[in-house]
């Protein structure tokens, strides 16, 4: 006769799966809700609760401001340049780190994480100090000028782009490039004709993330490029400047413009990528 004890194993019922998935769903939903509520609060504030006019009037006022228009133009140009530069560096960097275990590769790998883990202010301060060692002519052209905006954005964005490109190349079967070499390709031809073609979805992701990171950059810009109106002011510094003069409504409006720009870029990249790259 067998004795049933309370610790006897029983197959899990459907209820267990439901509980597991519900738990996960609650966490996902809570985070999505937090993001939605933040955005909703911004819209509500601009729309009347905290401002003196209608939702539309706040945006019109923002777009009519020459300072904000200048910041918007510089933001679009600098973020695009920073993203292009990041991808241009990240493709070879990601490829080398993924394919070769060379001397010092671990050190370089760790070094590339520094802009990601460093406090943004330290990145800006380090750039500022670095340029103190460079010739005065170079310093005058870059520091507190528009090139500093792009360089500060690139310094951080590129590290993210390298991580993404390395992961993209890690996922691509290296044997395809080796087969291409047996078919008559040099390593360069195999890279451009086979590996880079397969890495395009990664390139697109890296460019999108680099662009979005550049858009959100603030600390390094403030220190290295300054926040001079009509000169080195970008949208993130506009939010800061509007806040510092007590115009919370303008700050929130500009924040919403940044949200819209980020969403537009991500959606365009995804739609274009899905259509052209079989993502």
């Amino acid at each position, binding site marked *: 006769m067998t004795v049933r004890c309370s610790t006897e194993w029983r197959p899990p019922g459907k209820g267990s799966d439901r509980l597991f998935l519900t738990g996960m769903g609650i966490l996902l939903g809570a985070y999505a809700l937090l993001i939605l509520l933040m955005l909703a609060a911004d819209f509500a504030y601009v729309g009347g609760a905290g401002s003196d006019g209608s939702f539309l009037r706040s945006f019109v006022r923002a777009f009519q401001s020459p300072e904000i228009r200048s910041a918007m133009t510089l933001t679009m140009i600098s973020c695009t340049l920073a993203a292009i530069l990041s991808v241009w560096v990240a493709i070879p960097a990601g490829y080398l780190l993924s394919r070769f275990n060379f001397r010092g590769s671990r050190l370089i790998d760790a070094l590339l994480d520094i802009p990601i883990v460093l406090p943004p202010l330290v990145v800006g301060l380090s750039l500022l100090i670095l340029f103190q060692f460079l010739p005065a002519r170079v310093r005058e052209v870059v520091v507190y000028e528009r090139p500093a905006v792009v360089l500060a954005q690139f310094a951080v964005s590129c590290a993210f782009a390298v991580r993404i490109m390395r992961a993209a190349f890690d996922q691509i079967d290296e044997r395809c490039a*080796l*087969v*291409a070499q047996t078919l*008559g390709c040099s390593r360069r*031809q195999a890279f451009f004709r086979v590996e880079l073609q*397969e890495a395009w979805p990664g390139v697109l992701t890296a460019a999108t993330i680099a662009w979005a990171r550049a858009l959100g950059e603030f600390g390094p810009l403030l220190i290295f490029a300054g926040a001079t109106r009509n000169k080195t002011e970008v949208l993130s510094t506009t939010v800061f400047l509007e806040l510092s003069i007590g115009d919370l409504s303008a700050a929130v409006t500009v924040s919403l413009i940044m949200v819209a720009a980020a969403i537009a870029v991500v959606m365009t990249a995804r739609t274009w990528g899905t259509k052209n790259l079989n993502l």
Partner: protein
Amino acid sequence: MIELEHIDLDQGAFALRDLTLEVPEGGYAVLMGASGSGKTTLLELVCGLRQPQAGRIIIGDHDMTNAVPAAREVGYVPQDGALFKTMTVREQLAFALEIRRRPRAEIEARVSEMAELLGITPLLDRLPPGLSGGERQRTAMGRALSFRPKVLLLDEPLTALDDETRERIMQLLQHVQQHTGVTTLHVTHNRQEAEALGTMGLKITQGRIEPLDLGKGDHA
């Protein structure tokens, strides 16, 4: 002809010592051996993806020991084909000829000829994710043979295929070899496959090559 003379290759835990083999012009050699015995490594040595520490590699009449893979004129079909994911079957078959900057008309004619030979004409505009295991192997073979290589290296081309497809690809391999006369080195685990296809048998054990009796009265 494929000739390996006194090859030494040391890769930490794995080593080939004084390895010698010869596959005569137009021959179809099958190479058998346990997993991890170095069969794939041997193919990679022939096509130049690995460099031996000592010995010579002769392909056709030329010493190719230090030649880059592109210069060896070797058609290589790795396990599961390793097809280029972003290219259609047509682009894969044309790849080696485009690299060699052959005229467009010649490329198109060769692609049609290879597709006809391998029975993949209806698949020419398909991408690899839409192909079955057998179709992938045919495409990989077509890609490897497109530039008329001196030798063809096949790494377990029939593994992971169902019985019916395996039988068809075996017949196709025989047909291709008769049609092109290409010297072939075919790595396999399967004895039946080796006996059906090989004109000579080889076995790799502990880094050395030994002849393998295929039951046809001939030896390596």
